[in-house]
């Protein structure tokens, strides 16, 4: 039982880590960035490139991948979102343009690495396992759990207590008013995309390390879940997204343990449905635009 609890915490952490970046862009800019799973995948493949092709160790690959995906986020905004924003295009247009970026990047990665899943070179990934009685714990998994909570706290702190956070909150409320108040809107948007994508990239690298496997579609199964936990946690609330992620993780594992396997998804998503019926704005959601 303790092992399954640990499994649930880990799964919740994966969902949360992925959802954080996704929720950040949505909460500040009202954009559903459908390229987020691609950024996640890109982080893993950049790490593979640094380790496999450049022959550098994982602790160098990790920051490089995070930095490059962060910069990719800024480019993504300039290419896929900024032109639409300037013309006041509807939200659907930016979803389509982020999908287009996804298709292009996935194809480019497949041209280089193929469509099948691949692994890191032998011994290149941090592997550290210890046992407590009958249970097994892995260093990388514990790191993911700790990092997820730490990142959520850090992001919440930045948004609440720093100048950048105040700028972002002003931007989330009203971009035009924020500009009039002297907020450097372009810089704030670039910062949002940088942080969001860097988080996505970090999640991708850590997950690829944890499983020692990566493929061009590795972000796809997480996308629907990230969207779900965002809705349940409260659209625009980062702590809400993290709590939603843990609820989903626990729900999935509990249903595996206690229910016939066919009912697993129905149970997990039924639980989320129940939350929404009781609290339509999500667990930590607010009705006013006072988000972030």
């Amino acid at each position, binding site marked *: 039982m303790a092992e399954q609890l640990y*499994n649930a915490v880990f*799964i919740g952490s994966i969902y949360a880590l992925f959802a954080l970046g996704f929720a950040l862009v949505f909460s500040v800019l009202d954009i559903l960035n459908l390229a987020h799973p691609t950024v996640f995948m890109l982080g893993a493949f950049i790490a593979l490139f640094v380790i496999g092709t450049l022959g550098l160790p994982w602790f160098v690959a990790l920051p490089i991948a995070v930095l490059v995906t962060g910069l990719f986020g800024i480019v993504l905004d300039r290419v896929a979102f900024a032109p639409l924003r300037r013309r006041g295009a509807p939200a659907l247009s930016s979803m389509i343009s982020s999908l287009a970026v996804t298709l292009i990047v996935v194809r480019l990665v497949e041209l280089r690495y193929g*469509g099948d*899943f691949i*692994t890191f070179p032998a011994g290149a990934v941090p592997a550290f*396992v210890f046992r407590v009685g009958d249970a097994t714990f892995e260093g990388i998994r514990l790191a993911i759990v700790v990092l997820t909570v730490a990142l959520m706290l850090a992001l919440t702190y930045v948004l609440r207590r720093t100048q950048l956070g105040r700028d972002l909150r002003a931007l989330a409320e009203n971009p035009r008013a924020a500009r009039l108040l002297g907020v450097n809107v372009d810089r704030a948007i670039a910062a949002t995309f940088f942080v969001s994508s860097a988080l996505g990239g970090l999640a991708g690298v850590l997950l690829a390390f944890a499983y020692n*496997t990566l*493929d061009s579609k590795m972000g796809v199964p997480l996308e629907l879940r990230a969207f779900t936990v965002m809705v349940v946690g409260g659209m625009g609330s980062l702590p809400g997204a993290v709590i939603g992620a843990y609820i989903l993780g626990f729900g999935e594992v509990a249903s*595996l343990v206690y229910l016939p396997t066919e009912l697993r998804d129905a149970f997990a998503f039924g639980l989320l449905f129940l939350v929404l019926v009781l609290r339509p704005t999500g667990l930590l959601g607010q009705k006013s635009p006072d988000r972030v």
Partner: protein
Amino acid sequence: MRSLAAVGLASALLLAACGGGTTTPSGNPASATVAAPKPDIKIGLATAKSGAANFYNPQQSNGALLAVEQINTAGGIAGAKLQLIVEDDGSVRDQGITAFKKFIEQDKVVAILGPTLSAVAAGAHPVAQAAGVPVIAISNTGLGIVGKCDYGPCDWIFRASLGEQSAVPETVKAATQKLGLKKVVIIYGDGKFELDDLSIFKEAFKANGVTVTKEIAYTAKDVDFAPFVTQAKGETPDAIVASSLAGAAGKILDEVAKQMPGKRVIGGNGLNSAALLSNANAGLIVVGTAWSKASTDKTNTDFVAAYKARFGTDPDQFAAQSYTAVNVLADALKRSGNATNNAALKKALEGVSSLATPLGAFSFTADHDVKQPTFVMTVKDGQFTPFQ
């Protein structure tokens, strides 16, 4: 794809052009009756050069190409050269159908090999069935490819790829004997391939007196496999069965190695993947395969050497199967006596019997399915090796 087809076409034109100047069989160049060269015998190969299954290439194309080259060098089919026309099926049903239509209507091929995926075959095979053109499936292992097909009669379809109904029972039998299995847990995915495998595994374990104590389902959306293996561990099984594709199988292998040290993972064709060879825990795998590179049969060692000499890399199972299919077709063409008569070719294919191929002695069953040995394998030093 186009380049290969273009090379094929160019060489055909060149052969046709050169053919005009050859001497008659009598060896008398002055003879007034110069026999026209025999037209090429065209074979279509629909294969996934792009899309989700693109990793089966170039091996699948190369195997067929090598066989065609060898047969032509040895004199062709009663003096006529084989011409291989390769089209990309894009790993998708519609593109597979388009390729089959082109082969039949435009290229007028005598037979078609492919397509790569079973799901694409379900769309493309009916096209050939309706046109009465023989097909040899070279990598479709699912149910309903030959024998009983969802789309109706499929008597023009043959299969040279070992189906799961043949491979899985052999794997289970070998694993039960060598590992002394009493009870197992099956972890299975929700795709068609995985569910088909699940039913075949259950039947095979029953036949071998092994109890399946629990069946645990995962979905294509699942990311982490630790909870499934933890759940399986609670049953204290003698081995885990992974009815899954390679991606999920890799994660199951890692979890079994961590949570249940010493236990093996028995799987179907999904585990028969080169991508799993680099997995640190691939040594736990027990899987039935259609081909073994290590087989010392002379036809196989000759094939491996020729492939390596021609393409600079080792062949894989998909190369061995497409190579075999072309040789099976050539054997039938030689015996049919008339390359343009589809019905005669079909009958000759049905008569293929114990043909020496890299897959072992090759025959077709009454249902047009392959009859060949199953190689039960594990992984050692990054290579599939016989499970002993």
